């Protein structure tokens, strides 16, 4: 078991490293270096960067030195919590991102949670009552969920809300709580706004998970141990929930790792359409304005967040699957 977790942690570290390299590449991609554009930006704003300041910045970021040195310096700065300056906002990146990152986490986790809560019972039902009307209905909704890109779904729901109820279903907070400090009332307001984005984000994943659960369970239902359990005289409900569902839960649980990146990815576009105060709209703005430190940081933080989520799900899997727990003991 320790070996398994060790391997997972190692892989997570490698992944974070790969993400940081990619984020750094994104920062480096546009022509010109950071300090030059910073000076130009400041000049455009009417303030002057002294030569000394500029020199300090160059040393800090290792400009003019080989690319790996620059990367190392950048990583070092990040380790100290310095993510650089946002050109667009002329404020430190961390300040600009503010609570948006945690709201991204909240939205993603809500979507993931919804995915599970919906997919598990529906998947079980679909498999146990294969070819029933309910199974066909679930399959159909599942196909819609897979076929409609989530940003289109967001768009359609937004339009329907707007034209039918004259209501804005976007956003995460009511106007009065938009910039209010955290309070119980604000939290409640957030909870009330959460279901729509969570459903939109989670639908594709739910559809996929229903298919996975259904297929796995159908496989398991044919296995002899189900006959064994049945031949003991257990009730059908007990047979199915205790045995095949339990076994089918493992591959189901292991896909959570692949669902999370998918949801985080989707949250970017959906947030842009629905105007959610997550990092999504910020990333788009930063990319269009070539505000690369902000963009790179967002890519980095999203990636790291996803890796942590995946790692947690892997460890949960160990707890669920005794076969892994007993591995190399």
């Amino acid at each position: 078991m320790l070996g398994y977790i060790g391997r997972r942690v190692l892989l997570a570290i490698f992944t974070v490293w790969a993400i940081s390299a990619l984020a750094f590449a994104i920062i480096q991609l546009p022509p010109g270096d950071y300090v030059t554009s910073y000076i130009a930006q400041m000049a455009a704003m009417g303030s002057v960067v002294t030569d000394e300041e500029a020199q300090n910045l160059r040393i800090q970021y290792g400009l003019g030195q080989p690319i790996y040195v620059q990367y190392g310096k950048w990583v070092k700065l990040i380790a100290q919590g310095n993510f650089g300056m946002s050109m667009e906002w002329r404020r430190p990146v961390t300040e600009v991102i503010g609570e948006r990152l945690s709201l991204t986490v909240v939205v993603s986790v809500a979507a993931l949670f919804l995915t599970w809560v919906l997919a598990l019972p529906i998947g079980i039902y679909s498999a146990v009552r294969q070819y029933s009307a309910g199974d066909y209905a679930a399959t159909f909704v599942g196909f819609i969920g897979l076929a409609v890109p989530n940003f289109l779904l967001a768009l359609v729901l937004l339009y329907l809300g707007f034209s039918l109820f004259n209501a804005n279903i976007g956003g995460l907070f009511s106007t009065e709580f938009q910039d209010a400090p955290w309070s119980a009332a604000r939290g409640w307001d957030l909870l009330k706004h959460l279901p729509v984005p969570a459903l939109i984000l989670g639908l594709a994943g739910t559809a996929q998970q229903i298919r996975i659960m259904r297929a796995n369970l159908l496989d398991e239902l044919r296995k002899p141990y189900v006959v064994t359990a049945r031949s003991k005289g257990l009730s059908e409900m007990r047979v199915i929930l205790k045995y095949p569902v339990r076994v089918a839960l493992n591959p189901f649980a292991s896909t959570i790792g692949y669902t999370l990146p998918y949801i985080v990815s989707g949250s970017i576009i959906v947030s842009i359409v629905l105007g959610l105060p997550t990092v999504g709209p910020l990333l788009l703005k930063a990319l269009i304005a070539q505000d690369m430190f902000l963009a790179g940081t967002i890519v980095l933080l999203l990636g790291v967040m996803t890796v942590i989520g995946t790692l947690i799900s892997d460890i949960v899997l160990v707890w669920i699957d005794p076969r892994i727990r007993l591995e190399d003991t």
Partner: protein
Amino acid sequence: MDDNSEGGFAPLPTVDRQTLLSVRNLKTYFAQDEGTVKAVDGVSFDVSRRRTLGIVGESGCGKSVTARSILRIVDRPGRIIDGEIQFRRPTNGAGGRVVDLAKLEPNGREMRAIRGAEIALIFQEPMSSFSPVHSVGNQIIEAIRLHQPVGRQDARAKAIEMLRRVGVSSPEARVDQLAHQLSGGLRQRAMIAMALSCKPTLLIADEPTTALDVTTQTQILALMRQLQQEDGMAIMLITHDLGVIAEMATDVAVMYLGRVVEQAPVDAIFHDPKHPYTRALLRSIPRIRARTRERLTPIAGAVPHPYDRPRGCPFHPRCPEFMAGRCDQQEPSLRPVAEQHTVSCFLYE
């Protein structure tokens, strides 16, 4: 196209006190898009107390479906469409109460009280007949607690005791292991322990030793005989292996294409087989005391496709005694030819 009403069966000797299970004209069909598979098509046989009925036949002849029909755990789309499964339930003192399992609700209370407690099942595939994520003990304890009013600790003690009885060494440790940590032989022992944990009156063993190597097979069969002597249950042993039959069975029913073609005590089957199929089956296996260079004769032809059962006697396309105009037109029924010996063949009508 098959007219079953004319075939039917002749009544066997009346159900006496010694008969535990009496199956009459059982039909279990699987309705599929491509056609109906008549997996069990009018099976009749009896199992007596404390005896072992061997059911023998080629693969696909409906042996396993018969077993599952008795337990009422046939997978969909399979369905019992006709017949009786008279089972004598043990009651305190008196000779017991006879119920027709075919009439019970498959998942109803009474059927579930019988399943596992009075009729237990062990089968092939020792690899996958235990759940891969639950300990062996967990699954045995579950069976015990389901049918007996005992607490968790007592049930665990019983499970360990049962494992010891079936010859599992250090059962206290094994009880918490997962099935895949046990060898094939041990797993089958654990399976037997689970099946017998509630002292059933009938044990259905569906190819219990097919997946095991010969040495282990011998051990498992010896174990089953020993436990039968101790607990006094009847065994319904399903196999395609005539060697296993010779070793274990007291009575034999020979099945072909969803029918019983011959039922008799084991000696009669081996020494005085009546049905051409039984004879062909016996000719196809080697004998220890055979003359050297004696030829084994395979049975001509192949088992017909299940969608396409031949008209008349199901065996007639492969039968060396085929009588044109009779065997391919009418269906024979089980008739007594000697004491406790019934055959379904026109040669004896």
